[in-house]
């Protein structure tokens, strides 16, 4: 299980290859989140961030058959179309890979201490949290 919080960009193909080498892996589900139209700065809480992500990954691994998993989240200045976050889950089975990957993303959105500030022509503004994200994370409790 690899968790990284970094300024640098990442390489989806290389990260997925790295968790696909075990010949018992039959399925890798992955997710990349990208900056849409607006330049932004991502602030985080150094120290807590990696711990929070590890906690989320551990929860996923206790619920589904997870053979390996990589989560990378960037911080700092990001431009439109830049990659922000990567979650990749390797499993024997596709259902487990998909569920664990989506669960991790949903929990990242509500539990990992990152904050986005968007820089628009009219000025900079912090992004407001969405109720939809709380709902997305909440549905895994059932």
């Amino acid at each position, binding site marked *: 299980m690899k968790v990284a919080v970094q300024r640098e960009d990442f390489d989806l193909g290389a990260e997925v290859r790295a968790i696909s080498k075990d010949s018992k892996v039959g399925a890798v589900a992955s997710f990349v989140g990208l900056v849409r139209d607006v330049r932004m700065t991502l602030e985080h809480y150094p120290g807590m961030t990696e711990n929070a992500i590890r906690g989320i990954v551990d929860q996923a691994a206790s619920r589904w058959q997870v053979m390996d998993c990589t989560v990378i989240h960037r911080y700092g200045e990001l431009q439109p179309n830049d990659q922000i976050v990567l979650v990749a889950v390797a499993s024997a089975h596709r259902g487990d890979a998909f569920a664990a990957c989506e669960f991790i993303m949903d929990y990242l*959105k509500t539990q990992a201490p990152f904050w986005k500030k968007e820089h628009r022509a009219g000025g900079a503004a912090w992004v407001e*949290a969405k109720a939809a994200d709380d709902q997305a994370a909440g549905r895994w409790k059932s």
Partner: protein
Amino acid sequence: MCASCRTLSYFGEMRVKVTVLFFAALREQLGRPREELDLPSNINTIGGLRDHLRARGGAWASAFAPNRAVRAAVNQDMAQPAAAIKAGDEVAFFPPVTGG
């Protein structure tokens, strides 16, 4: 609890030293990323500390107004208002997270 964190004030009252961190909009609004606090020992929960900070007035009153969504962590774990704080803790306040 570290022995040096618990001190007696001039009046002999028990004081509790904690580090408080602020992030994102809260950090900007309060004009600081962190503060070392020496709390009266009756302030021993996240909710109590939040009330204590709000009572400073000005930017503090609006940043910690009851209708503002503020999240907290104790020692880098998400924490509810009832969560205990003790000497030596690292407490953080921040807006709901928006990463991912």
